[in-house]
C-alpha cells in the first residue's frame, strides 16, 4: 500500500508540475503584452500579423492621431458637463438644453468620423484580409461605444 501511495504521489506531483509549467509557457506571451507600456499597439501588431515596417507606419499614424483624440476627449467632457448641468438645473426641456444636446450629438458624430478616418487609414497599411478584419472589429465598437456613451447622460 505504501508503494502504491508513493507512486500516486509522484504521479500527482509530476502532473501538477507539468500543468503549471505548460500553463505558464502558454500564457507568457499574453502576460508580457499586458505588462507592456504600449500594450494596445503590441497587441495590434501580433493580432494582425504586421511586419515591422507596417507596424512602424501604423505607430506613426497612431502618434499623429493621438492629439486629435485627446482634443476630442476634452470637448466631449465639456459637452457632457454642460448637458448634465442643464438637465439638472431645469425641470423641462429648454431651448438651451436642446441646443446643448444637438451640439453634443454633433460632437459625437465628429468623433466617430475622425475615428473612422483613422481606422480606414490604418487598415490600408495592413494586408487586405487583415485590413478587412480590423475594420470589422474597430467599426463594430464605434457603434456600441456610442450606445454606451449615450446612456451616460441619463445616469
Amino acid at each position: 500500500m505504501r508503494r502504491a501511495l508513493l507512486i500516486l504521489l509522484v504521479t500527482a506531483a509530476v502532473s501538477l508540475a507539468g500543468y503549471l509549467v505548460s500553463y505558464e509557457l502558454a500564457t507568457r506571451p499574453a502576460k508580457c503584452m499586458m505588462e507592456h507600456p504600449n500594450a494596445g499597439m503590441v497587441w495590434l501588431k501580433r493580432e494582425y500579423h504586421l511586419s515591422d515596417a507596417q507596424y512602424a507606419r501604423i505607430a506613426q499614424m497612431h502618434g499623429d492621431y493621438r492629439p486629435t483624440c485627446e482634443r476630442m476627449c476634452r470637448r466631449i467632457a465639456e459637452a457632457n458637463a454642460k448637458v448634465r448641468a442643464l438637465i439638472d438645473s431645469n425641470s423641462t426641456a429648454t431651448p438651451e438644453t436642446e441646443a446643448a444636446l444637438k451640439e453634443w450629438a454633433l460632437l459625437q458624430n465628429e468623433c466617430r468620423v475622425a475615428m473612422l478616418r483613422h481606422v480606414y487609414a490604418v487598415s490600408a497599411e495592413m494586408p487586405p484580409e487583415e485590413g478587412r478584419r480590423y475594420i470589422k472589429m474597430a467599426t463594430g465598437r464605434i457603434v456600441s461605444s456610442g450606445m454606451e456613451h449615450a446612456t451616460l447622460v441619463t445616469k
Partner: protein
Amino acid sequence: MPNGVLNFFKGLAVLGCFIRVSGRSRFESEQMNSDENQLFPTWTVKVEIPPRFQANVWAQIAARESSRRPLWDQLRDWVAAEFCKPHLAPALVTLGLTLSIALAYMQAQDTNVMKGKELEARYLETINPLAHMSHST
C-alpha cells in the same frame, strides 16, 4: 405336510445358505488382504496439480472474501495490488503528465482569449475618444 413342518425346513435351508456365504466371504477377504499387502510396497501416489493451482485457490478465497467486504476496502486493496506493479508506474506518470499538459493548454487558450479581448479593448480606448470618455467617467 403341515405348514409348521414346511416352515421348519425352509428355515434350515436359509440358515445353511447364510453359513455357506459367510464362510466363503471370510476366506476371500483374507486372500485379498494378503494380495494387498504384497501390492502396497509397490504402490506410489501420482498426483498431478493443475497449473496455477495455488494461485487459483487464493484467488477464489480472495473473491469470496471480497464479496463480503466494504467497497472502500476492496478499492484500497485493488490500488495496493495494481499500483505496485513496476511496469505500471511509468505508464501512470506519463498518462498523468499528458492529461495535465492537455488541460493546461486548454485553460491557457481560454486565458489567452480573455487577455486578447482585454488588449483589444485597450487598443480601442486609445483610438476611440467616446470609449475613452466612458471609461474615465
